[in-house]
């Protein structure tokens, strides 16, 4: 088995295999993003990662390998491992590890470790090749710090005219890590925490439903997720955070559109300090010229239903270019202008008027 695996990996590395490598019924697919980004202002950090020192080992760089094999006619197993550029070299995580059961032609039940779709592209968030930006708009995608659960989901597909409706209920639990924001830092100094420090928390119950209408030229989806959160040090015990979101993506006659809105609501208790109510939204518009996809994004992040002084408020405008220079390989260039609201840090670690973020990435799949 080892030998076969090695052969397949070498084959893939040498470009000898087209698409997935098959070895004794085990298929191997992979993706890789390597990127470098630089912030246009000094003495400030964006997203706990980006400064005016360009670095390759930022949060964006990663390698993913997916192994999947048939167990029998009805069951298959899939594992996806991700090695991140950030942190130590031992930093490999299992993002997916599940058994899928084809209960019926239209029903697939999966159990194990799963990425769950809080938002439109949550379940392929790591696969940079599959979307136009270097990183999906953080004004929305940062709202939920948990992206995987250990539990079960079901993929039920119903034909609706020419389209397909996917209904995906899911339930499970997981642990997560959030990072102290610039707005939280003064309030949290009593805990000995500063901006960018990690807060670990437990989510014993994550339950939600994703509904996606897949039609010829795009997808319209809506989702709801409720998380129960424990964080003893903050006195959070069994408090609830819920996420409601709606999103649309269209790829029609070279026009590419992504639009999404999400709302995070938490109970008005201790949890509101760790996770204040927030809203996020963005619109991306692009146009394909053959292998070139220039695109522009406007994104905004604002306080939610309960106006919290800890809420992050910012807008950003991103101009980018995705260039598919070879099949399965894309180069991306981006310029992003980020503007926090007055006296707000946005996703920076400190109050700043505005800053530009420049980035280049290479995304491949194999």
């Amino acid at each position, binding site marked *: 088995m080892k030998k076969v695996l090695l052969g397949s990996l070498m084959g893939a590395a040498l470009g000898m295999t087209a698409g997935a490598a098959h070895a004794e019924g085990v298929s191997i697919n992979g993706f890789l993003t390597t990127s470098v980004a630089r912030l246009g202002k000094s003495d400030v950090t964006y997203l706990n990662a980006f400064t005016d020192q360009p670095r390759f080992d930022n949060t964006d760089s990663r390698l993913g390998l997916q192994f*999947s094999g048939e167990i029998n006619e009805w069951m298959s197993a899939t594992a996806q491992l991700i090695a991140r550029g950030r942190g130590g070299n031992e930093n490999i995580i299992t993002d997916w590890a599940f058994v899928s059961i084809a209960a019926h032609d239209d029903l697939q039940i999966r159990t194990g470790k799963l*990425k769950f779709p809080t938002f439109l592209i949550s379940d392929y968030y790591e696969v940079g090749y599959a979307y136009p930006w270097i990183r999906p708009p953080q004004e929305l995608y940062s709202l939920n710090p948990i992206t995987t659960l250990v539990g079960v989901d079901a993929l039920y597909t119903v034909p609706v005219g020419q389209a397909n409706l996917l209904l995906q209920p899911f339930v499970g639990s997981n642990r997560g890590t959030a990072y102290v924001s610039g707005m939280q830092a003064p309030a949290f100094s009593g805990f000995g925490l500063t901006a960018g420090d990690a807060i670990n928390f437990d989510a014993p119950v994550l339950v939600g439903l994703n509904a996606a209408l897949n039609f010829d030229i795009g997808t319209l989806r809506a989702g709801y997720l409720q998380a129960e959160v424990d964080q003893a040090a903050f006195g959070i015990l069994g408090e609830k955070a819920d996420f409601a979101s709606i999103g649309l993506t269209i790829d029609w006659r070279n026009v590419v559109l992504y639009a999404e809105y999400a709302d995070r609501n938490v109970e008005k208790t201790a949890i509101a300090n760790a996770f204040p109510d927030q809203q996020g939204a963005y619109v991306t518009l692009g146009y394909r010229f053959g292998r070139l996809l220039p695109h522009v994004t406007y994104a905004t992040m604002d306080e939610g239903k309960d106006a919290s002084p800890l809420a992050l408020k910012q807008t950003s405008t991103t101009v980018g270019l995705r260039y598919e220079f070879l099949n399965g390989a894309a180069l991306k260039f981006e310029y992003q202008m980020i503007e926090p609201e007055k006296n707000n840090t946005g996703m920076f670690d400190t109050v700043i008027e505005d800053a530009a973020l420049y980035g280049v990435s290479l995304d491949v799949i194999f």
Partner: protein
Amino acid sequence: MNIQMKMAWAGLLLVASSAFGVAQAELAIIAHPSQKVVGVSQDNVSDIYLGRSKTFPNGAAVEAVDQDSGTASYQQFLAKVLKMDAAALKSYWAKRIFSGKAKPPKGLGDDEAVKKWVAANPNGLGYVQGKFVDSSVKVLLIIP
């Protein structure tokens, strides 16, 4: 027409015929001779190849095989049946594979290999150049 014009036209025709000569041949969508399904449309075939449907329109199970990406039949199938370019198809499958939702049909070499495989698999579905069709397979649809 002057001589330069004639040469230019001849050159253009030569390029056009070598580039498109094969692609203009008919593509046959083939199944096992025992396959009972009738009235399969281009959309049905496309849904099966894109993993949106796991059965024929009559509910019968289907297993589709692809050709390797280098073949003329593959290029023709991509353009005429799936109506996608190679990059769009890659991106489509990237989303589905890495979210653990579906796998693409396996690539099985060329026309000859696909015909042999379909002839041996009662649930099989494949596509080959019209000239490869013989009594070992049943034609469900002709793509001009």
